[in-house]
């Protein structure tokens, strides 16, 4: 079996979500990903949620998930010997991923120019909220503020409730996925030309164009909708409570008839108020009242299955329990059991896309510093004395 990234070595000096998600994808598709953690580890280790709610650096679900299949080196880049060891590893790397703020990266000595000098073949991926330069490049950011500045927050939530972020760390994940695609393009070029480059990912730049038709329509026609539409783009695109959860419908014109057949309301098919999508838009509130009344009597899994058979776009809001029980995800092998030496067994999402049935490596996240000695020996080429000195220095600096 060949993994798509066989033979690729990645150095990840990223923390929290964006760079680790990028690194996770590299590891999943077969690269050797060396995660360089600061003394004490990636802050995601301190973040949780933890097994049984008890903080422990090896049982944070956030860390466990985002760092599957990597090796961990605990190294203090603030010491000269630590930084030197880092650059020795850079010599052996195809890709370097980092998500420091530009001025923190400079202060730490993680600089593109120096990496390029040491290894011109390397692809260096920098993930930040705003990019490497510009008026906000040094502004402090996190997932919340990036979500706001990327334009996605203004359109999320209800008008009265105010702008809302989506669950979890969506701006950070978008950064990680965009970084992976940008990095893969640069790696493709590097393997062809023998020359690396700097891939500068601005999460704001990635997020802002994605507001459905919002940007094209505003830019071209000067029109935009200055409000939030909550759970309903229209009566026929929205979320409705049912007896045991929530249903989501998304009806295009051609789905109208199969939808009414599914919910056994063909009387509405003849109703002149709802003949065309335009009619349904005009009589939006009346139709919404019908849908609220209908959904309130349904149970989510039954109607989902019936709608599936009858080709009507009715889904239900899957909880985490629903995901784990999903017959679809289970049959496809998307839910994968991974056993971690400290955190134990847990269920993880599988590959975000499939490069054949065996194209993805489901392996646990590393213990903090588990591979320090091996990697410093094999990759950085340090001898026992140098490693011992590093260990000493780290103790001094911590």
């Amino acid at each position, binding site marked *: 079996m060949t993994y798509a990234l066989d033979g690729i070595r990645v150095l990840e000096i990223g923390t929290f979500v964006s760079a680790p998600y990028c690194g996770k994808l590299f590891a999943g598709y077969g690269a050797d990903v060396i995660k360089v953690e600061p003394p004490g580890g990636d802050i995601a280790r301190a973040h949780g949620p933890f097994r049984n709610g008890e903080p422990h650096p090896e049982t944070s679900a956030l860390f466990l998930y985002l760092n599957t299949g990597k090796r961990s080196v605990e190294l203090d880049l603030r010491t000269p010997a630590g930084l030197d060891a880092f650059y020795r590893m850079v010599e052996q790397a195809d890709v370097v991923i980092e998500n420091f703020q530009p001025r923190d990266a400079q202060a730490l000595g993680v600089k593109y120019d120096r990496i390029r000098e040491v290894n011109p073949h390397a692809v260096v991926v920098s993930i930040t909220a705003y990019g490497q330069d510009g008026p906000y490049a040094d502004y402090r950011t996190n997932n919340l503020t990036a979500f706001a500045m990327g334009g996605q927050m203004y359109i999320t939530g209800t008008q009265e409730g105010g702008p809302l972020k989506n669950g979890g760390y969506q701006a950070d994940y978008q950064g990680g996925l965009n970084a992976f695609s940008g990095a893969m393009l640069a790696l493709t070029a590097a393997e062809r030309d023998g020359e690396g480059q700097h891939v500068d*990912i601005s999460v704001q730049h990635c997020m802002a164009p994605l507001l459905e*038709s919002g940007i094209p329509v505003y830019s071209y026609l000067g029109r*935009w909708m200055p409000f939030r539409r909550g759970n309903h783009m229209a009566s026929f695109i929205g979320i409705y409570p049912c007896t045991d959860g929530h249903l989501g419908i998304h009806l295009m014109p051609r789905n109208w008839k199969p939808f009414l057949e599914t919910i056994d309301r063909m009387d509405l098919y003849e109703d002149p108020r709802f003949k065309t999508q335009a009619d349904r838009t005009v009589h939006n509130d009346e139709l919404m009242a019908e849908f609220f009344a209908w959904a309130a009597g349904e149970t989510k899994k039954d109607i989902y299955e019936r709608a599936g058979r009858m080709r009507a776009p009715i889904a239900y809001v899957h909880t985490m*329990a629903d995901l784990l029980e999903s*017959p679809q995800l289970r049959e*496809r092998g998307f839910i994968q059991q991974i056993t971690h030496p400290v955190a134990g067994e847990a269920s993880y999402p599988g590959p975000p896309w499939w490069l054949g049935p065996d194209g993805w490596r489901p392996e646990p996240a590393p213990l903090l510093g588990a591979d320090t000695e091996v990697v410093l020996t094999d990759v950085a080429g340090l001898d026992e004395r140098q490693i011992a000195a590093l260990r000493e220095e780290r103790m001094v600096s911590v």
Partner: protein
Amino acid sequence: MTAPLDGVRVVDLTMVWAGPFGTRMLGDYGAEVIKVESPGQWDLLRALGQIPRTEERWWNKSAYFNHNNRDKYSFALDLGKAEGREVLLELCRQSDVLVENYRTDVMDNFGLSYEAVREANPDIIYVSMPGHGKSGPEKDYVAYGTNVEQLAGLVSLSGYEGGEPMKTGFSYGDPMAGTALVSAVCLALRKRRLEGHGSFVELAQRENLTAFVGEWMVDYSMNGIERQPTGNRHPHMAPHGCYPCAGYDNWVTVACQDDDEFAALAKVLEQPELSEDERFATAAGRKEHEQELDALIAAWTSQRGHYEAMHILQRARVTAGAVLTIPEVMSDPQLRYRGGWVEHSHPDAGTWEMEAPPWQLSRTPGHIRMHAPRFGEHNSYVLRDVLGLSEERIAELYSSGVTSDDPEKSLHQ
């Protein structure tokens, strides 16, 4: 400088958002993307541009279409006809990648399954982008844009505190699948270099988005607790929220990651004593008293504009970001500085601004090289230059309606 995907030819059978957005980025970074539209079944986005049907060639003027289909060629071909299928297979012989996002059974019904295309070209990389996947009990279920995030578990985690699950502001799964397509294609191209033959890639949109809430799946499987929506709050950090500003519907987000940052915030609020206040001196204390903190911050932000509040807070090194509207992201100084929007011209649609390629690659940057194609604009290029068909055969394709220079106008009225 040679673009990363220079020399890679892509047959693009995708429509609407996820697929076209992804293949457009392949085009941004150098691939030759040939968008295949049937004269009788063409891309819905051409019809969603709010262009009056009285305008000449209105189907070429939809900005929604034109943003997501630049850097492509348009080739009109009816795959439902035997001759159309034959021409498509000939095109696949000359291509590296095929991307499709039809309902799961459509390609099989056309006789264009992976196996059929592989027979024509064993080197082809065949990418399917279905909602649920090409296998499993739900594979034929219909799922559109907003359904994907419901199926992915994201909606169950989103919403105001104590409120019901909340959708995202857009069909979030679509652009995430499109973004993933670029790396999926690059990975498959590398695999082809290693193995010497093509492969099948399956990008199920709900799986791709489920990966964005993976930590909550791990958490649930370890702890058995369903987490409820927490609005804009954070599990540990406080303050961490969205605050009203002066004017109508203006907002700024503010977060404090540690004690120093909170002390800086307290100074901006002109209440430096807050950082000594025992309610707020520690992260745990701030979390416990976050509602009181929210009121103090809102009292300050509501006296200021949202950009103004952000800049004042940032000068004090406090994490803050204005909630930008659509016009504001287009005028934002940072995005302008980065060249995030570029002027663009189209022979039918005129001149306006569209987004630059998203990722800045220092040595091989992406470019907007071509305007989005007018329907059937490159029929001649594909039939003559790429496929080398005889004039006789081309005339037959036109007369039998397998290809056409005009779309069937009644489709998206």
